[in-house]
């Protein structure tokens, strides 16, 4: 164990969430504005590939354009081809030999150093997100805080799970233990909507458990991910342990998935791509792999909030509005179905509409913006197509007028539709934009039935002050993250482990006590310690024991 590592394991304070920036303080606002100016002056940035500690620039590059202002080029990333992907895998595989033999403490120390560096440059990361991902200030700030949380949390988790744990019940003369071991090369394929937190969470989990990583960032947000790659380097990640592979999903992403030396794929993104990865991985299996590819996928949601008759409307309207329209609805946890109980339906819908009418759509850099543009033209077109669908086959309640912003960026209008049936496509399909389908329920049971009527199960919420209804929701509301009397987005590491099931994902909970186990295999060893009737009596129950699986 290195000295740094020993310090880590002995003096690590308990996990504590990184506080969000208090933007009501002038010095924080000014610091943030300085960071924005600082980043702005450095644009466009370049993001090369990073393989085995070497930066490689490719001929083909992918532009990264600000969604708030399409005339602003944030930078360009290199685009890995299949050969580059092969090289990255071979490099990561070689690096695995050593990295897998480091101690959990050493690896945790790497994460903690990275977290420190990120903290120091926190506003720079956020500012780049404002430009590259069109995250409003506080959303960007929350994303960076969550990234820091993942690093801090997984560092502690890795230490907790490390070593041999003697298993109970203790039997004289028999020594049973369990230990966790890394898998190998892990391909991490990240989304653009949490351009830092999610790639950091997935890749740091892989690293700290002793795997080597190839991170393929989303095409829309390679620059934020590149800053993270540089931070890891600075924190001392050995060459080849972490490789950065920007490029087109169809080209290098797909190649990584099929690659016979990629042991595990961790993906967060759309349902279609997630399922495609699943199929591709199975196909690769048929070509005679000596292991079963492990896949962790986090996909979409069609998340519902139920507003009960006894709900506090004053509190639930703003919660619903923020959950649905914050970051223009581009969170997998975002609210897209509002299920209203009959007796509050009219009042609630009116107040909800009035609140949505009051939202300010605008560029992400403006601190007054509540609804930023969506990520790119394709996303905007998808939102528009659902709005058209709603206007044809549902009852339009509201649609903002964003024509004043037209042509500047990928702005789409916040919209609300009433739909008659939960089978309507607006109530079934993930739109990933500021569009809400409103449904009516006769009673609480029906509300739950409607809530459970999609193939997804990610987040859900209930606003109610009826204790028995909250209890029923706990039991019967099908979702990985249920939120009672609050917003349904904004899961916090450790406090609300995040992830869904059904077609929302495989149920791994990021930021929770089970997450790191996804990245490891468990091995059990049983040793007979009895020799001719003599067994070490002292062994009874003295060891480090396994508290919890």
């Amino acid at each position, binding site marked *: 164990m290195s000295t740094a590592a020993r310090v880590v394991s002995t003096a690590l304070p308990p996990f*504590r*969430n*990184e*506080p*969000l920036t*208090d*933007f*009501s*303080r*002038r*010095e924080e*606002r000014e610091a943030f504005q300085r960071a924005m100016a600082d980043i702005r002056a450095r644009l466009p940035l370049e993001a090369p590939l990073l393989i085995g500690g070497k930066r490689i620039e490719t001929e083909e590059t992918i532009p990264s354009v600000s969604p708030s202002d399409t005339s602003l080029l944030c930078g360009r990333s290199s685009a890995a081809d299949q050969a580059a992907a092969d090289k990255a895998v071979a490099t990561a595989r070689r690096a695995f030999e050593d990295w897998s033999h480091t101690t959990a403490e050493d690896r945790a120390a790497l994460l903690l150093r990275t977290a420190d560096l990120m903290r120091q440059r926190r506003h720079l990361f956020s500012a780049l997100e404002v430009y590259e991902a069109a995250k409003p*200030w*506080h959303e960007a700030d929350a994303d960076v805080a969550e990234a820091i949380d993942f690093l801090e949390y997984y560092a502690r988790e890795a230490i907790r799970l490390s070593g041999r744990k003697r298993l109970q019940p203790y039997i004289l003369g028999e020594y049973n233990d369990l230990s966790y071991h890394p898998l190998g090369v892990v391909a991490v394929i990240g989304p653009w909507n949490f351009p830092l937190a999610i790639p950091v969470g997935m890749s740091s989990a892989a690293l700290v458990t002793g795997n080597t990583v190839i991170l393929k960032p989303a095409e829309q947000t390679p620059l934020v991910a590149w800053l993270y790659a540089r931070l890891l380097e600075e924190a001392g990640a050995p060459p080849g342990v972490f490789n950065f592979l920007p490029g087109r999903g169809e080209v290098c992403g797909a190649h990584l998935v099929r690659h016979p030396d990629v042991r595990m794929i961790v993906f967060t993104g759309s349902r279609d791509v997630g399922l495609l990865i699943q199929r591709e991985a199975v196909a690769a299996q048929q070509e005679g792999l000596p292991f079963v590819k492990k896949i962790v996928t986090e996909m979409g949601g069609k998340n519902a909030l139920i507003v009960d*008759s*006894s*709900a*506090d*409307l*004053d*509190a639930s*309207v*703003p919660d619903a*509005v923020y959950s649905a329209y914050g970051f223009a609805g581009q969170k997998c946890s975002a609210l897209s179905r509002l299920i209203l109980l009959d*007796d509050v339906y009219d009042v609630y819908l009116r*107040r909800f509409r*009035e*609140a949505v*009418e*009051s939202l*300010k759509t605008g560029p992400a850099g*403006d*601190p*007054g913006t*509540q609804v930023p543009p969506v990520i790119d033209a394709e996303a905007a077109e998808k939102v528009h197509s659902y709005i058209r669908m709603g206007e044809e086959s549902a009852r339009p309640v509201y649609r903002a007028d964003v024509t004043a912003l037209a042509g500047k960026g990928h702005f789409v209008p916040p919209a609300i539709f009433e739909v008659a049936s939960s089978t309507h496509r607006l109530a079934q399909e993930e739109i990933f934009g500021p569009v809400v389908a409103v449904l009516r329920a006769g009673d609480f049971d029906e509300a739950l039935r409607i809530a459970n009527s999609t193939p997804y199960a990610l987040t859900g919420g209930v606003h109610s*002050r*009826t*204790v*028995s209804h909250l209890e029923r929701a706990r039991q019967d509301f099908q979702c990985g993250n249920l939120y009672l009397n609050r917003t349904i987005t904004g899961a916090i590491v450790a406090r609300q482990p995040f992830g869904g099931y059904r077609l929302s994902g495989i149920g791994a909970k990021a930021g929770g006590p089970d997450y790191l186990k996804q990245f490891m295999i468990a091995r059990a060893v049983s040793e007979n310690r009895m020799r001719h009737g003599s067994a070490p009596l002292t062994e009874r129950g003295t060891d480090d024991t396994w508290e919890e699986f």
Partner: protein
Amino acid sequence: MSSIPYQTKQNFEEPHPSRPREERLEALTRRIGRNLFRRMRSSAPSFWRLAAVEDHFMKLMMRDEDLRFRMLQFVDVFPSLKDTRSVTRHLEEYLSSEEMGSGTGHGPLGRIASLLGRDLGGVRVITAATARLAITRMANQFIAGHTPEEVAVRIRSMEAGGFHFSLDLLGEFVASEVQAGEFARRYLEMIERFEDLLGPLPAVFADQPHLQAPPRVNISIKLSSLTSRFDPMDPEGTSAAVRERLRPLVRAARQHGAFINVDMEKYEFRDITLQIILDLLDEEEFRGFPHLGAVAQAYLLDADESLRWFLAELARRNQPTTIRLVRGAYWDSEQIWARQKGWPVPVISDKRQTDIMFERCTRILMEAAPLVRTAIASHNVRSIAYALALRKVLGQPAGAFEVQMLYGMAGPIKDAVLRSGVPVRIYTPCGELLPGMSYLVRRILENTSNESFLRQRFSNRVSEEKLLASPHESGLEDLGI
């Protein structure tokens, strides 16, 4: 937007050089305090007599924290329950769940029932009707009426007794521009019309000029109710949006001779609230308008620093106004919000320190006279006595200063202060129970809190000398040492 309090770290000159002698001030404070206690006519304000159903409700809440929490949750949901069946159901769900050990006479509901329940064949049960009665009466205790007309009736009789008022329109969170516009419209209507509802000013004031504190119509408003985008992250945008709706109100106040007091809300909103007031007063049209008041909250760790900054800003502009000094109404919430966000808690955690800060701010404020008029908003006799003593020591005239208290609270103290010749203004809420719920819950929390002066005085029966002791004293006597 120029400067915001906590960044201005310059050392401000103490506005008044001649510091009163501390002992004299302390002796005077106690003497005035004793006089105030003597002047209290009745022994306790209504709900401390514990005669009526709502008094029992309050008393139960003082008995244990968990019960208080559950009862408040029930009070909170109550106005949205439409029929007796759902009232009964929620009563049971909140107050007799299994983990609390339900059953007749044992669970919390049982405890309430044994005090206020109705006898049904030998078993006392609390009915929906009893609960409704208790809550309605509790609300009536703190809320003067549902409509301006109803409230005007109350205020007329308050005025006849020599009291002034500040009208508060209930309603808390504004989620849309429609709601914000509606609030602004109602404020405007009150500024323009309320005097007509009241009719002629009673004669008491004509006879006692020292009790006058014009203008007669005084409205308390919350700036966050004037826009749905009240966001301290965006001070410029927020200030512009709020001033858009504030301008017509201030214009009307000038025209009709009314006072607008800007209430202070949660800590996150403090700096921007003060800044908006300054921004408005910086507009040519409103420069020098003396009837736009602000509030300082003494329970904040940086209360004195912020107050000094604000006074300096006013002095720089030679801008007269009245500042209301309160301890602060969001003590419990601030604790919770800060913990959830991992931010430093902005409020003082030791009541005695808040009391010290209150006196320090009283002095800072009163030394800013005559540019700034002081309103001491407190039910704490020691705090009031301190301010009265300080006024004497500083040799300020009676009109330089007023005391404010909340409707439905501390009746005997109000009487006593008034009879000692100081103008008393009563903060008078108007509105329905539903929008008034946050206000009501804050009042219940405040009155049932162990730290409350009123509870110490009227329920715990702490001795007058203790209640009048300087907050600087060690406090060992409280422990019986």
